[in-house]
């Protein structure tokens, strides 16, 4: 009798519960949703299962029932309890418009939601970027983050984020470094917008975890990894041409190839495929894109105002108008392809490994008729393995290399020349542990090698220069209580050039309740000079020299920030104020010696960047979402002159209307990106006729404020096909002034209002599924 009872009890506790997860509104089954369950409310010893192609998941329900936490990127996490004895349960997940549940990986070691992170992180969802119809990542980031500007210039792209340039903003792909051009800028075209899961932006020294280049900010682009058995998406985008330059190119034309290349169609095609079978996951993403070149025009002649404030020898502001008209400024067109392949092998919870390979190739068609266009080629690969030893610690090893070549190719004859080669390689060993209750420890060592081959070190001869660094870092995140969290970290950088440098960081977070969070952060950073800043030695046609300085000292900075955050299911606002004080800041300055101008890298005294930022998102109604960001930065003047080209004010705003029904979804959005007035001084020389003397002078450049607005309408049919129509720069803003002389790179590169159409198809939905 007892045996029978025991048997009955045993069978009773082996009862399974069938969960079905659907999307709220469309009632479509959600595939690949993570279902976490545990016996206790604290969710200790949580177990996981994933929903299948029909949105179903089953697990053995404990006697007393179970607490669940169901999550998926882009949806609001569901928590609750399944009563004992339940056999079937259907739950609906709502799209996460506010983004508080977005899981982030940068800034600490364990993935955790934005809300729980001790460091302020701005997250931009890749789904939102792709659905908003952006043509490329540069455009997407500029519309979604305040104060970020990526400008196409003659030799690549120049980036500016709230007063800091590419040397202080670290762009990472899945946490790994990339190499690009010599100024530290990357070919931002390398980031395939459609392969991005989300973007994490952490402002303010993350040097402790990421090293010297992160003294301003870290932008981590996390790529997609499918958790569905099969996922294939294809898409195509076609946009209106920026400017048609040649109506009828003929083979007899001297510049026949140039004429064709300048007027490429504005289009892209992409394909993403993911497969998951057992312990293996494969993710492939390819994207091919073209844009056409165009010109920016300035109607009036250049005006230069020499202010009395910046020029002590003047009694009043003096304006000089140039006699010559300004030639149109050409913005280059491109043709590029990116391909990436990731293979994951995750046989158990304790062991995971992955191998990635990325390939990039780009032709850049500039508007200079010099018989040459530029080609960039990049290959990078990463191998990672992580092993968990019981619940003591986890050890991870990463090997990463990035090889980048830049060429110049002739436009009439079939040959090309290598301009420079950049190689980086990185080895990382990281140990993380959550063994000690409430502590999240990370210890790591990183070895980094950087080699640059160019003809700019020794005049006209291809030579190489390299830098090697070994860095050690440690960080502890201590959850002192439910309300308090403290994070302390330190990184030491040992380089042959500069010896030991220490970069400490402390952050604290206080959350009195589940809505409020207060954060503060203090970091100290070092940035050692780059190869270019140290070794450059280039004579431009006897006109001027660009000179590196082997005696440069590393830049040092002290960063402090204080922020407050309030969030509910429908509303999120984060406000932060900061101060970033640089000493020995490395800048290029024009100096005259050896009878000519020399652009020389030197350590300037100090520079202070102080500012604030507000990020807000509000799901006003189920169908209406608003978001806005505002950034203010004040950069200290040097001797009464404002040398930084950054605008103090920048903002973005967006409004989105959503309508979901079975087999149809509509999303309409309007976004605006505002850049405030730019007022800065440019180094120049004036000859005063009456005195007959030539003096160093500064003229003030005044670029007006502007806003670029986009509108999109996206419709999804049967959850398979999405059609997006949109207009960029809907109010047709065109800059009236291009600045003067060397200041021409601070205006937005837009040809005016341009429309586009985009089509995306989920090919895997065509494949009939075998029901289990």
């Amino acid at each position, binding site marked *: 009798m007892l045996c029978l009872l025991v048997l009955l009890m045993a069978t009773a506790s082996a009862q399974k519960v069938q969960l079905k997860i659907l999307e709220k509104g469309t009632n479509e089954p959600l595939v690949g949703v993570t279902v976490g369950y545990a016996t206790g409310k604290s969710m200790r010893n949580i177990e996981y299962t994933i929903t299948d192609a029909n949105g179903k998941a089953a697990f053995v329900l404990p006697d007393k029932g179970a607490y669940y936490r169901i999550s998926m990127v882009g949806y609001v996490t569901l928590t609750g309890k399944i009563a004992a004895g339940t056999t079937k349960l259907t739950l609906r997940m709502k799209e996460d418009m506010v983004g508080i549940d977005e899981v982030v990986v940068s800034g600490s070691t364990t993935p955790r939601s934005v809300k729980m992170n001790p460091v302020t992180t701005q997250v931009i969802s890749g789904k939102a970027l792709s659905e908003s119809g952006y043509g490329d990542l540069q455009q997407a980031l500029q519309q979604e983050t305040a104060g970020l500007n990526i400008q196409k210039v003659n030799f690549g792209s120049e980036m500016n984020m709230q007063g800091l340039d590419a040397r202080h903003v670290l762009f990472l792909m899945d946490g790994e470094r990339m190499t690009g051009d010599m100024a530290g800028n990357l070919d931002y075209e390398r980031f395939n917008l459609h392969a991005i899961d989300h973007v994490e932006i952490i402002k303010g020294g993350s040097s402790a975890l990421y090293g010297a280049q992160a003294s301003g900010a870290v932008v981590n682009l996390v790529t997609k990894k499918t958790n569905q058995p099969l996922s294939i998406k294809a898409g195509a985008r076609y946009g209106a041409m920026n400017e048609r330059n040649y109506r009828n190119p003929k083979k007899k034309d001297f510049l026949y190839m140039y004429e064709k290349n300048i007027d490429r169609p504005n289009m892209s095609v992409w394909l993403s495929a993911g497969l998951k079978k057992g312990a293996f996951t494969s993710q492939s993403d390819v994207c091919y894109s073209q844009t056409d070149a165009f010109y920016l025009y300035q109607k009036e002649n250049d005006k230069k105002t020499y202010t009395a404030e910046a020029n002590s020898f003047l009694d009043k502001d003096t304006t000089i108008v140039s006699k010559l008209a300004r030639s149109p400024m050409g913005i280059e067109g491109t043709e590029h392809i990116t391909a990436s392949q990731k293979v994951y092998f995750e046989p158990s919870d304790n062991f995971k490994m992955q191998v990635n390979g990325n390939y990039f190739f780009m032709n850049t068609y500039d508007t200079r008729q010099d018989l040459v266009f530029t080609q960039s080629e990049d290959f990078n690969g990463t191998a990672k393995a992580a092993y968990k030893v019981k619940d003591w610690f986890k050890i991870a090893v990463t090997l990463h290399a990035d090889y980048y070549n830049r060429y110049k190719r002739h436009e*009439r004859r079939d040959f090309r020349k290598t301009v420079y080669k950049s190689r980086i390689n990185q080895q990382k060993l990281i140990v993380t542990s959550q063994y000690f209750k409430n502590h999240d420890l990370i210890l790591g060592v990183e070895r980094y090698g950087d080699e640059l081959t160019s003809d700019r070190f020794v005049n006209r001869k291809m030579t190489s220069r390299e830098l090697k660094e070994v860095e050690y870092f440690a960080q502890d995140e201590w959850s002192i209580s439910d309300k308090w969290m403290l994070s302390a970290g330190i990184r030491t950088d040992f380089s042959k050039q500069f010896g030991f440098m220490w970069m400490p960081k402390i952050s604290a977070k206080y959350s009195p309740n589940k809505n409020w969070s207060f954060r503060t952060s203090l970091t100290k950073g070092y940035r050692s000079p780059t190869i270019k800043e140290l070794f450059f030695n280039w004579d431009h046609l006897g006109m001027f020299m660009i000179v590196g300085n082997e005696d440069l000292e590393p830049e040092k900075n002290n960063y402090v920030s204080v922020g407050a955050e309030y969030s509910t299911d429908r509303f999120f606002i984060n406000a932060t104020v900061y101060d970033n004080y640089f000493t020995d800041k490395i800048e290029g300055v024009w100096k005259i010696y050896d*009878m000519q101008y020399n652009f020389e890298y030197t350590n300037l005294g100090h520079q202070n960047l102080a500012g604030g930022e507000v990020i807000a998102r509000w799901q006003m109604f189920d169908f209406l979402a608003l978001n806005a960001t505002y950034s203010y930065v004040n950069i200290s003047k040097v001797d009464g002159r404002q040398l930084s080209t950054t605008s103090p004010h920048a903002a973005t705003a967006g409004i989105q209307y959503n309508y979901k029904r079975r087999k149809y979804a509509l999303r309409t959005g309007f976004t605006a990106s505002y850049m405030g007035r730019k007022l800065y001084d440019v180094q120049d020389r004036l000859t005063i006729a009456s005195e007959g003397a030539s003096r160093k002078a500064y003229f003030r450049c005044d670029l007006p404020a502007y806003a670029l607005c986009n509108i999109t309408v996206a419709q999804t049919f049967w959850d398979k096909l999405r059609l997006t129509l949109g207009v960029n720069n809907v109010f047709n803003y065109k800059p009236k002034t291009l600045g003067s002389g060397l200041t021409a790179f601070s205006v937005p590169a837009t040809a005016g209002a341009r429309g586009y159409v985009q089509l995306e198809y989920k090919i895997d939905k065509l494949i009939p599924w075998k029901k289990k």
Partner: protein
Amino acid sequence: MEKEIKASLNLCAFASLRWRNNNNFLKLTAFVLLLLALGACVKYDADPFDGEILPRVSGYSTGVTNDWIYFNLRTGDVYNKTKPNEDITEGEQLDTLIWDLAFCGHHMRTNSGTSGSGKGGALDLGNGNYEAWTTVSQLPDDAEWVVDTDSDVYVTYSQADWYHYLVENNMDMDLYPWFDPNKGPRQKITTANKLLEEAIAVSGPPMAYTPSYHTYVVRTADGERYFKLQIVNWYNTYLDIDDTGGEMSYYVDELE
């Protein structure tokens, strides 16, 4: 390097392929590799250039400010062909009719006005259409020929000549450098043809030379014959990448 890249990628694709017997994935890999192959293709299908190219770079970079190459369009002779002032020095061109057209950098002279005693001159026939102009009779009757002047065109000072000027006038070399990043190199007024000056527009720094593609007519020194001229590029197509240009490519043909 490229072979290694392709091999590695193939390996990655193959590694995941081993665990799959899915036709779709094979097709996907093939598609990916095809796209990669396409990305590296650049087609060279322009017609070969059948025009003229200047024999050398002229102008300030040779060390001489007024470094002109003189052409006799009627006989085909070229003066100062291999180096500056070889045959005709600055000033000697004034009293002779042995030349019709001269080049210095992107500036041009005709044997007329302040440049020479001849009956030369220049006329602008508008953008393109070079092939369409074949006879003298096509030229407009009321054509206003532009002759050379000495108050409109500036040439770039050679560095040597500029420093010579500074020394002569007791000016500090470090206060008046030859090149200014905002203004460009120092200029000196010269005698030249202001219409032909528009044949190629110069902007920068960084220096960019953009031809206007206008067809011009040059009248010879004796005033009898007419040659059409079109400047197509600042560069010589046969030279290396990174060449700084100056050996201009152009078309010149006689009008019947």
